[in-house]
Structure formats: C-alpha cells, structure tokens
C-alpha cells in the first residue's frame, strides 16, 4: 500500500491553497458594497495565487522520487467525543495536484474572462465572492486526505453551484433550475454520506490511507455496497444517468459558471471520487461494472440529446454530460482506465471551458441570444471567437493530433481491451458516441458560425474585449497541446500510477483498428452534419421533427420520467402524510399538549404565594420522605 509522507517545505503551507480563495470569498461576500470597486480584482487574484502555489508544489513533487510523491499535511485533529475522532488533513499527490492545477489554472482564466462578461452586472462583486467560494470548496474536495473533508468540499461546491445557477434569481427559470440542481444533488449526496457512514462503521476511520489499507480483508458485499453508494454520489454531482436531469437546466446560470462549474471542474468531481476510491472499486467488481454501464449509457444519452438542442448552451451541456460519461466509463475499467479517464478530464477541462467561453462571447455579441437558429455566419464578425471555438471543436470531436483525440481514443481502446462481451458492448457504445459527438458538435459550429446570417436586425455582432478573448486563446492552446503533453509516452499514466495503480497496456496506438474506425465514425458524423446544416438553409423555426428528435429535445423524457415516477407518487404520498399528520399525529400531539397545559394550569394554583402554605407543604414533604425512608428500611 502507498505510504504518505509528512509535509515539509512548500507542502507545509498547502492549506494556503484553500485558505486564499476562502478568505477572498469571505471578504467579498461579507464586505458588502464597499468592496464593489476592487472586488473583482481580488476575486481574480485569489485563484491566481493558489495556482502559483500549486505550480510550485507540482514542480517540487515531480522532482521527488516516485515513492515519495504523496505528502500528507495534518491540519487538525477533531475529537468530537471519545470514540469519534476525525483527523482533518490535506494530501498532495499526483491525482490531487493534477486537479489543483486544473481548478486554479482554468479557474483563473475563467475568472479573468468574467471581469469582462459580468462587467455590466450590478452584483459582479458578489459573483466573484461565490466563484471564490466554489474554488475553495472544490480545492478542499480534491485535497482532503479523508472522506469527511471530501464530503465538506462536496457539499461546499454544491452550495456554490446552487448560488451561482440561481445568481439571476429574479428570473423564475433560474431560481427553479437552482432548486432543481440542489434537490437532484441531494439524492446523490445522500448516497455519498451513507457510503462514508458505512466506511466508518466498517473500518472505523475516514482517512483514505486507513480505509484503503483495510479494504483487502473486507467483505466483498460491503465493498460492493460502498462502491454502489459512491457511484450514486458520483451520478448526482456528475450528472450521470439516472441523476442527469439537472445539468441542462443549470445553464440558466451566467456562462462563466457553466464553463467552470458545469463543464470543467465540479461536474467532474464524480470522476475524481471514483478514481480516488480506486482501491475500493478494484475489489468490488459489481460496483465497477455498474460504473462502466452508467458511463456508457450516459455518454450515448448526452450525445443524443445534444443532437436536437437549439440552445447553444444546452447543446454544450448535453455534450458535457456525454464526455463525463466517457470519463466515468474509463475509471470504471479499473487500473487500465484510471489514467485515461483523468487525462480526458483534464483535456476536456480545456476544450469544454473554451467552448463555453466561446458561447459566452457569442451571447455577449448578440444581446444574450442563445438560439442557434438566430446565429449563422458569425465567423466573419468574430474571427477570434471562431478560431478558438473551432480549435476546441476539433479537439472534442477527436481530430487527429489535438488533445481530445489522444484521450478519447485511449478510452475507446481501453474499453475494447476489457475483453469479453461487456468489453465489446462498452467499446462500441463509446465508438458510436464518438460519431454522434462529431455530428452534434459540427451542427453547433455550422449553425453558429457558418451559413447565412440569421440574426435580428438590431443585433450588431462584434468581437469581445481582450479580457475575454485572451482566456479563450490560452484555453485553445491547451485544447491543442494538452493531450500531446499528457499522453505521449504514457507520461501522465506513469505520473498517476502511485495513486491509482499501473495501467497494463502501453499508451495509445494511433494506428490501432479501433482508432481507425473511430476516425471513420468521426468523418461520417461531420459529413452528415455538413449535409444537413451547410447544404440546406437552417429554418428559423425548428421543424416538427421525427419521434427521435422530439424525444431528444425533451431530454429523452428524463424530466417526464422523474415527474411520473418520483414527483407525482411523491406528491400523493405527501398528501397522504399531511392528512395523517393533521388527523392522527396532530390529534395526539395537541391532545398531549392540552393535557399538559391543563395539568400545569391546575397545578400552578398550588403555588399560592403564601409562605405559610409553602412551609406546610415542606413539612408534609419531610413527613413523607422520612416515612418512606423508614419503610424502605423495613
């Protein structure tokens, strides 16, 4: 088992990585209007400072021999009462530092972008406060050295997500979306909390090292139960089937929020959870299979929904759901897939953030229009946005040489390598998904940037200011190069190996059969999209469409399913319980209350206020007590 090392040097201030954005959030949220003028600058500086610190730690970590690359930083011991003790600490290792760099790096870029995007919002300072809060919570989630700290971070990002989806809460749709995200996430969080309780009951500890060193002797049924509960948690946070319904609605939040929280970082927490719990899942085959199934189903689910959405952000959100499906599928494959899943997570962080910022830039230019049927031909007035969006697009569909190609093909390859029927089914699902991805992403690009302009007369598209375009350019650079940097020569897999185990196969082979077929699927997908949306004019009003299109537009009836299976029976149950509560429970409670009230009201007359009657009562009490004692004595 992996041993951790006590923190020294730069690692002893790991807590600052979290504390800086947290302190900044406190200042911005509690500081009120007096921080309005400089609030956004502080809000940007905080994640940047954490990023620099994370970078230094990363460099130091890489410089160490492989066996010493896990540093534990004890923060404080929390003894609630005897027998219930939790040590809260931070753990820096290959996995957590990768996330730290993603969160603070991409996070900083999106913070900078938000200065421009939110420039006209009266509550910009508060927005940055919530954003910093999110960054701090997300960092705690990935840096905690135990499940309790992870859970605190997990709930923290949930809170920040809720606050930011509902940031424009004067819009009823935004308020509802925020509530929906919160409620659906509760279901997943419940699974995670029960998983943690089962762990504590079984192993007596919350710490990663403690739990992971105890799993080898544990009952497989327990491990499967823990694994499935963790998966439930992952499904909620990462919008996987069956808890996927909140993510599309979450696009009601400001676009930087969609980019950072609902694309690049928070929604990938489920992937982190499964990868971090690798020692549990490696010994729980049933749970692991469930993970792959969830991943495969969701990647198709999301891809199909993405094909029918006319709202550019919702199309991208469906794509996020689908791409996370890939990651979940990968980490469900065991040691073979962990590194690829995390690598895809990182590259996805770049290109999906780039896509969302591009979408934000388009909306910024077109008076917050999101309907792609009212775009068209935007490449000309917005060349920079088109270029960065286009590069991210090529990366996500797996254009050879760009980052998505390296990581996605690796996942498809690894799924086929699993062998057996399940391997074939999973691999094929992933492959078909890649084809659909190419189709719906091409559709987005064609409808938005190419073809004839379809925007309203009073819309004058223009390129966004530099504070917005520079982050997009940097993210585009990441979309091009990240895959190459991570995947070539199995570099990232080796870096992660101490945490999640060595992957058995060599890194991706570009000329493998699966790779070639994937390439063909991609070309077909792009081709169909070109036929449908470039050759023919795009109608301004969506056509009625076939049964499949209608289903996809309605999120494959995800909401309808929830409403008929959970909401309506739930409402009936509630009504029944209210009836029961009113008649039976309240009857009993009110009866008891009336009894005590009446009893009390009579009894208080004994308290006459006359000292003579008090003394007499005391004397009576004395007589009773003495008599009782003598009687007991017998």
């Amino acid at each position, binding site marked *: 088992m992996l041993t951790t090392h006590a923190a020294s040097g730069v690692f002893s201030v790991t807590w600052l990585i979290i504390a800086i954005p947290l302190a900044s959030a406190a200042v911005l949220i509690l500081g009120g209007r007096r921080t309005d003028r400089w609030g956004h600058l502080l809000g940007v500086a905080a994640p940047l400072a954490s990023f620099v610190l994370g970078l230094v730690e990363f460099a130091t970590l890489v410089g160490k021999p492989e066996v010493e690359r896990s540093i534990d930083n004890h923060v404080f011991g929390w*003894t*609630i*009462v*005897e027998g219930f003790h939790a040590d809260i600490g931070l753990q820096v290792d290959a996995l957590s530092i990768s996330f730290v760099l993603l969160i603070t790096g991409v996070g900083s870029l999106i913070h900078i972008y938000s200065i421009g995007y939110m420039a006209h919002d009266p509550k910009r300072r508060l927005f940055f406060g919530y954003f910093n809060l999110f960054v701090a919570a997300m960092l705690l989630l990935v840096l905690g050295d135990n499940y309790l700290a992870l859970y605190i971070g997990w709930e923290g990002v949930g809170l920040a997500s809720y606050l930011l989806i509902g940031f424009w809460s004067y819009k009823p749709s935004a308020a509802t979306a925020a509530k929906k995200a919160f409620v659906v996430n509760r279901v997943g969080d419940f699974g995670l909390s029960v998983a943690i309780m089962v762990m504590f009951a079984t192993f007596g500890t919350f710490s990663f090292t403690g739990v992971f060193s105890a799993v080898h002797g544990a009952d497989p049924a327990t491990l499967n139960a823990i694994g499935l509960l963790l998966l439930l948690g992952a499904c909620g946070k990462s919008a996987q089937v069956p808890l996927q319904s909140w993510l599309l609605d979450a696009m009601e939040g400001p676009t930087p929020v969609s980019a950072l929280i609902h694309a690049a970082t928070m929604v990938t927490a489920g992937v982190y959870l499964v990868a971090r719990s690798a020692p549990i899942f490696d010994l729980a085959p049933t749970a692991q299979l469930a993970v792959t199934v969830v991943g495969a189903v969701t990647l198709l689910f999301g891809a199909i929904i993405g094909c029918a959405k006319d709202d550019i952000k919702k199309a991208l959100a469906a794509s996020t759901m689908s791409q996370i499906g890939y990651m979940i599928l990968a980490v469900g494959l065991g040691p073979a897939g962990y590194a690829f899943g995390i690598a895809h997570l990182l590259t996805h962080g770049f290109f999906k953030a780039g896509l969302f910022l591009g979408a934000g830039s388009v909306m910024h230019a077109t008076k917050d229009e999101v309907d792609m049927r009212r775009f068209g031909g935007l490449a000309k007035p917005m060349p920079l946005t088109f270029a960065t969006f286009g590069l991210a697009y090529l990366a996500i569909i797996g254009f050879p040489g760009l980052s998505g190609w390296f990581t996605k093909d690796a996942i498809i390859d690894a799924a086929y390598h699993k062998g057996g029927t399940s391997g074939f089914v999973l691999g094929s699902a992933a492959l078909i998904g890649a084809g659909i991805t190419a189709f719906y992403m091409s559709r987005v690009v064609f409808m938005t940037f190419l073809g004839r302009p379809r925007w309203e007369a009073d819309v004058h598209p223009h390129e966004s200011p530099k504070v917005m375009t520079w982050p997009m350019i940097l993210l585009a650079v990441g979309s091009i190069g990240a895959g190459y940097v991570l995947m070539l020569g199995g570099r990232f897999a080796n870096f992660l190996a101490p945490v999640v185990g060595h992957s058995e196969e060599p890194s991706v082979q570009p000329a493998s059969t699966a790779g070639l077929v994937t390439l063909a699927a991609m070309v077909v997908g792009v081709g169909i999209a070109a036929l449908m949306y470039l050759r023919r004019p795009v109608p301004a009003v969506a056509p009625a469409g076939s049964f499949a299109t209608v289903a996809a537009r309605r999120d494959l009836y995800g909401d309808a399913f929830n409403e008929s299976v959970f909401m309506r029976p739930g409402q009936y149950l509630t009504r029944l319980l209210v009836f029961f509560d009113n008649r039976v429970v309240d009857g009993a409670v009110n009866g008891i*209350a009336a009894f*005590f*009230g009446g*009893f*009390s*009201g009579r*009894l*208080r007359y004994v*308290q006459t*206020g006359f*000292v003579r009657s*008090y*003394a007499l*009562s*005391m004397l*009576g*009490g*004395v007589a*009773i*007590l*003495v008599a*009782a*004692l*003598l009687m*007991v*004595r017998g």
Partner: protein
Amino acid sequence: MRLLAAFHAAANPNAIPAPHIEYRAILPMLIVFGVACVGVLVEAFVPRVHRAVTQTVLALAGLVAALVAVVANTGLPRRLVVQSAVAADGPTLFIQGTILALSIGALLLIADRSIGADSDFVAQAADLPGTEQERASVRAGLRQTEVFPLAMFAVAGMMLFPAANDLVLAFVALEVLSLPLYLLAGMARRRRLLSQEAAVKYFLLGAFSSAFFVYGLALVYGYAKSVEYGDIATSLTSSDRGDSLVIVGLALIGISLLFKLSGVPFHWWTPDVYQGAPTPITAFMAAGTKVAAFGALLRVFFVAFGGLAWDWRPVVWGVAIATMVVGAILGVTQTDVKRLLAYSSIAHAGFILTAFAATTRASESSVLFYLVAYGFMNIGAFAIVMLVRDADGEANHLSRWVGLGRRSPLMAGIFALFLLAMAGLPPTSGLWAKVAVFQAAYQGGAGPLVIVGVLASAVTAYYYLRIIVLMFSQEPAVEGPTVVMPGALSAAAIALGVAVTIVLGVVPQTVLDLADKAVPFLR
C-alpha cells in the same frame, strides 16, 4: 512548631491544642473570606465616590486570585486538611473552580452600572425609583456597594459547603452562603415590594430548612458519636445504636440540601425568589447555590452515608421524578421569564438527580460536568433578561418579548442559544451534559429515571422553543420593550456564557476528562 505545642501543653494542661492548619490547601477560601472582610472595611473607610470602583476591583481581583490558587492547588495530594474538617480533593477543587468562574460572571453583572440610572440595586431605601429624590441620591454618590462584600461572603460559603468534611462545618458554610443571599434578594431597585417579599420568604423557608439540618446533625451525632464524614461512614457498620436514628438524621440533612438545590417538594421558594430578587442576584444564586448544594449533597451522601445507599436510593428516585415532572409541567404555563427560568432550574435539578440516584463513579463526574454547563448557560440567560427593558425597568412578562428577534437579532439569537442549551440541543453544552447524566443514570441501573428524564426534557423543550418562536416568528409590538446595549462588564459575562456553552458543545472532551479525573470524592 511541635516543640511550641508541647511547651504550651506543659504550661497549661487544660489548654486546647492549636489545630494544625494547611494554609495552602484552603488558600482559595481564605482569599475570598479575606476580600469579603476587606470589603466591609472599604465600606467603612473609603469615601463614597470611590467605593463602587474600589469594591468592584477588589472583588474581581479576589475571585481571580482565588481561581489562580485553585488551579495552583491541583498538583497537591488529595487529603483531609485542617484536622479532617475540610477535604482537599479533586471534586473540591473542581467545584470551587466552577463556583469562582461563575461568580466572576455574576459579579460582572452585579457591578455593571451602565444599565438604567443605578443598576438593579436600590441606592437609598427611602428613594422611589425614577424620582427626583433618587436622582439626587445618585448625584450625591449614594450607591449600593454593600452587595460586593455580601456576595463575597456568599461565594466563600459556597466554596466551603462542598469542601466541608464535617457536618458542623458544613452547617456553618450553609449559613454563611445563605444569609447574604437573603439580604441580596431584597435589594431590588424596582418592584421593591416583590423583592422584599422574596427576601422574607427565602429567609423564613431557609431558616426552616436549616433547622432540619441541625436536627438531623444532632441525630446523626447521637448515632455515630462524631460529625466527621469518615467517622459516620465507619459507624454505619460498627455503631450499637438503633438504625432509625441515622435514617431519620440523614433524611433531615438531605431535606435541607434538597431545599437548597430546589428539589421537589422543597422547591416552593424558587419561583418566588427568582422572580423577586434583582436579576444579577438571581443569576448568581441560580448558578452558584446549585453548584455548591449539589457538591455538598454528593459529598454527604457518597462519603458519609454511602453505606446506606440501598436505603436512600429509592427515595432519591422518587424525588428525582417529582422534581423533573414538576419543573417540566409547571414551566409550561409560566408567563414571566424569570419564573420560567426558575421552573427550568427545578427541572434541571431533577435531571442531575437522576445521575445522583445511580451512585456510581460516572454519576459523580457527570454531575460535575452538568453543573459547569448549566451554570454558565444560566448566567448568560439571566444577563440577557437584564437587557430587555422598558420605562419601568426589566420587561419580564413573556408577552413583551414578542418579536424581539426582529428588533435585536443578536441578543435574541444569544438568548435562543442559551435556551437551546437548556433544552439539550446541539451544538451546545446542554446536549453533552444531558447525555452524560442520563448515561450515568442508565449504567447505574436507573433506566426508568432516564425515561422520565427524556420525556420531561421533551416537555421543557416545548417552553424553551416557545420563547424562540415568540421572539423570532412574530412582529414586534409597537410599544414594546427595547434591548439596551450591554455595558462592557455585562457583555463580558454574556460572552463568557456563550463561549463556554459553545466550546463545551463542540469539544466537550477536555472538560469531561477533567471532571473524570477530579472524582472520586475522598472517602
């Protein structure tokens, strides 16, 4: 020294040998007694204008010094001192430390003169509150400063009461702590008749109960031929007298102790006196007297009469149940916040008695912990009661508290915290205190008491939560009372209460360990 004693004895064969006194062990009490005596001299010699400041500084310094002495004494061996009259053991130090800390809090409330013209104490007995005559007295510097030496004497008595290892000394301590309290209860500036009535009632009933103590003492002496706890314990197996002598004796002593800690049916004075006494004094006696009385109860019954536990335990069961039930049920219909807190204190006495009824080592430590937790939440709660005022002084009627949370969210929030602590809800000290006593009771075989206790706390929770609902969910009355800002001293007392209540709620283990290390009583 010994040579000197021998010389004395040789010179005068009839002389009583000078007692051997371990001054260091009783230093905390000596400090407080000394400060009380100096306080009397200050009344006589220091000019009027400087008196209030001098007394405040003197009393606070004395309490802090005594607390330091208590802490310094923790390393001393556990033993009987002053010729076996005083037990210098863990519980003594723990209880004395608690009493001193609580007294500091109470003294801060007593000393705070920033509220109203001249605080809660009458300056000149003939002055009516709010009159020109009273203002003249205040301008002339006529301030009530006797409260300080009186309170210090009471503190000293409270410290001695649980430390005494001898029934006669215990009786003296009981009187030393009670007499100043009778006086203090009658010194209210407003609602003077109520206050004086309270003082007289408290005095009459207190004298009545003291008589029981002396009578019991005499019977026990007749049985054991000694008043020392250790000798009484040994005599239980060796005495040739009839058992009824000691049974009746312990019953009468127990009754007097139950009176002090408001056990039913000796609780009658509690609501009347809590309501009538000036609120800082109510805070002081509610916290301090209860701690001292429970300390003495544990020592007398565990050390002296431990051998008869099988005989007195059933009666304690009965008293515990009656105390919890009466405290819980009568609290439901109270409309005056001080009376409500009085019934709450009766109910709490019942909860503590459940652990006492279990007569185990755990019951000793859990009672000690409960006393710390309860004492501080009580001081804090009464301190808030002092702040809610209208033109006629404190607005104690609950109907006046409606909507207070809207008007002063901070103070109402703090009061809600203390109420939650009394109800035993997390994240407060009250939760762990209740857990500790009920656990001790259950493990000691008092399961039925725990059931009654839990049901009674559910009823008490009703009246605590009702106040919270009252304060927060209704619109404030138009001409309602205001919450005055506390002066620095009251604010410090409130902060002390809040800090202890929350710290003991979040990390109770340190104090639980401390209480566990302090027990058992030296037998």
